[in-house]
C-alpha cells in the first residue's frame, strides 16, 4: 500500500520523531555550498494547488529540488480545473504523466484523502492544507522549531529521541477555521506537549471534545504559563461575517500586542504560520521582536518537507507508514 501524509493524527510518536530527526540532519544542506543531494533523482513531485499559497508551495518546491526531484507546479487558476475538470480527471492526468508524489492543497476538507484512497493514481499524497481540516507539514515544522528553540525547557525521555515533553503551547485566534491549529493540537500532544487553545467563543469549534487540549477564552491569564504562543491568521476568506464585532475589538481582546507579549515568560517564543495580518492578530513590533521565530519557521519548513519527501519517496517502500488507513 502507498504511504501518504494526510493528517498528523495518523502519526505516532515514533513516526513524528523520525521526520523531525531526519529534518535535523537535512537542515545542514541549507549551509552547504551546493544545496543539493541526488537522492530523488528521476522522481517527479507535482505541486497541485487549488488554493492560493506562496510559502507552502515554494517551500515544497525548494525541498523537492534540493533532493533533485523534478517538480511540476499545477495551479488551478488558469488551468483545466477552471474549465470545470473534476479532481478525478486531474488525478488521472497526473498519473498518466508519471507523478511519484502529489502535494495537494484544496479548499475542501478531505480532498487529499479522496485523492489518496480513490484508486485514481499510484502516487504518494502529501496534504499541504485541506479546507479547515489539516496542514500536517506546518505542524511538523512548528514542532521542529519548538524543539530547536526550547531545547533547555524540554524534559528528555529516558530513551529515544527528544520530543516536546514538558512544554506548554498556546494556540490563539481563529481556531474554528484553522487547519494549522488542528494539526498542531494532535501533533504537539503526540510529542508530549500540553496545548491550550485560546479563541473567542465564536471562533472555537463546537465539537472539540475529542481534542487533546485545554480551552480558554482569556488570553491574558494563559500567556504567563506558556513556553510558546502560536498566533493564527484570522481567515477573512472563510468568514461570512458575524464572528466578531470589529477587527479592532478582536485585536484588543485576542491580538498579541507589546503589552501582552510582556506577560510571557522570558524564554517563551512567538510563532505564526504566516501570512500575517500585522496589526490584527499580531502587532508588528512583536512579530519583529527577538522572541519571534517566524522566519525560522519558514526556514525549517524546507528541511521538514525534505524529510517528508525523502521518507515517503526515498526507498522502495516508504519509511512512513499510515497508522489508520
Amino acid at each position, binding site marked *: 500500500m502507498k504511504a501518504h501524509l494526510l493528517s498528523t493524527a495518523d502519526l505516532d510518536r515514533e513516526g513524528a520523531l523520525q521526520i523531525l530527526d531526519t529534518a535535523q540532519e537535512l537542515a545542514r544542506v541549507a549551509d552547504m555550498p*551546493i544545496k543539493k543531494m*541526488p*537522492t530523488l533523482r528521476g522522481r517527479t513531485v507535482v505541486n497541485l494547488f487549488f488554493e492560493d499559497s506562496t510559502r507552502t508551495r515554494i517551500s515544497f518546491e525548494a525541498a523537492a529540488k534540493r533532493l533533485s526531484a523534478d517538480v511540476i507546479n499545477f495551479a488551478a487558476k488558469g488551468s483545466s480545473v477552471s474549465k470545470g475538470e473534476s479532481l478525478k480527471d486531474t488525478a488521472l492526468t497526473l498519473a498518466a504523466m508519471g507523478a511519484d508524489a502529489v502535494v495537494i492543497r484544496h479548499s475542501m476538507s478531505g480532498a487529499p484523502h479522496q485523492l489518496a484512497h480513490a484508486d485514481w493514481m499510484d502516487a504518494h499524497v502529501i496534504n499541504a492544507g485541506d479546507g479547515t481540516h489539516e496542514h500536517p507539514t506546518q505542524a511538523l515544522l512548528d514542532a521542529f522549531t519548538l524543539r530547536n528553540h526550547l531545547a533547555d525547557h524540554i524534559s528528555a525521555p529516558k530513551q529515544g529521541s527528544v520530543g516536546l515533553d514538558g512544554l506548554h503551547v498556546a494556540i490563539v485566534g481563529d481556531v474554528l477555521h484553522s487547519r494549522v491549529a488542528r494539526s498542531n493540537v494532535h501533533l504537539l500532544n503526540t510529542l508530549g506537549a500540553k496545548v491550550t487553545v485560546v479563541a473567542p467563543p465564536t471562533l472555537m469549534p463546537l465539537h472539540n471534545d475529542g481534542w487533546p487540549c485545554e480551552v480558554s477564552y482569556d488570553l491574558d491569564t494563559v500567556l504567563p504559563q506558556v513556553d510558546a504562543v502560536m498566533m493564527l491568521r484570522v481567515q477573512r476568506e472563510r468568514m461570512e461575517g458575524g464572528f466578531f464585532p470589529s477587527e479592532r475589538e478582536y485585536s484588543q481582546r485576542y491580538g498579541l500586542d507589546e503589552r501582552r507579549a510582556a506577560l510571557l515568560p522570558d524564554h517563551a517564543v512567538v510563532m505564526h504560520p504566516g501570512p500575517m495580518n500585522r496589526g490584527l492578530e499580531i502587532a508588528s513590533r512583536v512579530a519583529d521582536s527577538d522572541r519571534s521565530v517566524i522566519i525560522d519557521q519558514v526556514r525549517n519548513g524546507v528541511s521538514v518537507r525534505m524529510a517528508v519527501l*525523502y521518507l515517503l519517496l*526515498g*526507498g522502495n517502500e516508504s519509511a512512513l507508514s499510515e497508522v489508520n488507513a
Partner: protein
Amino acid sequence: MTAVPVVLDASDISRALTRIAHEIVERNKGCANVVLLGIPTRGVPLAKRIAQRLQDIDGTQVPSGSIDITMYRDDLRLKPARALSITEVPVEGVDDKLVILVDDVLFSGRTIRAAMDAVSDLGRPQAIQLATLVDRGHRELPIRADYVGKNLPTAFDEAVHVHLSELDGEDSVVLGRDRS
C-alpha cells in the same frame, strides 16, 4: 558449535591504526593539511583514533569529523528509506584540504563512491584518500584504499564484523558465516 574466528584482536587493531597513521605522515610529508572524515557508524571512532595518533606522531591537531552517505547511496531504491546518521564536518571545511575518508570495512566500494560524491558537494578538496581497517576484496567499482589495516581474503557470502570499544565494548574483528 565452533568458536568464532577472531581475525584481529584489540592489540592488532591498535597496531594497524598506528601503522596507518605513520603511513599518512610519511606519504603526505606531515599532516598539516589533513582532515579525517569517518563514515558512520564505525568509521567515525576509527577516524578519531587515527587523529589522536597523528597528533602523537606529528604534534599537529588533525581535525576529524563524520560524513553520512545515505542520501548518496546507489541502492536507496532497493530498500525502505533509512534513518540518517550524523554529518559533522570540522569547521576547517574540506576546500583545498587533504581529505582522508575512514571506514571499517572496504567491500564493494559503493559506499566510498557515495562518500566521494558527498564530499564533493561540501567543497573541492586538494585530494581524497581512503583508509580502511579491513579490506575484504570483492570490489564492484574501480576503487582502492590508500591505507589498509589488514587485507582479509573472504568468500563473498562471509560477513566481517568490526567491534569497537566506543560502540561495542571491545575491540575485535571477527568473521561470520552469513552476511547481515
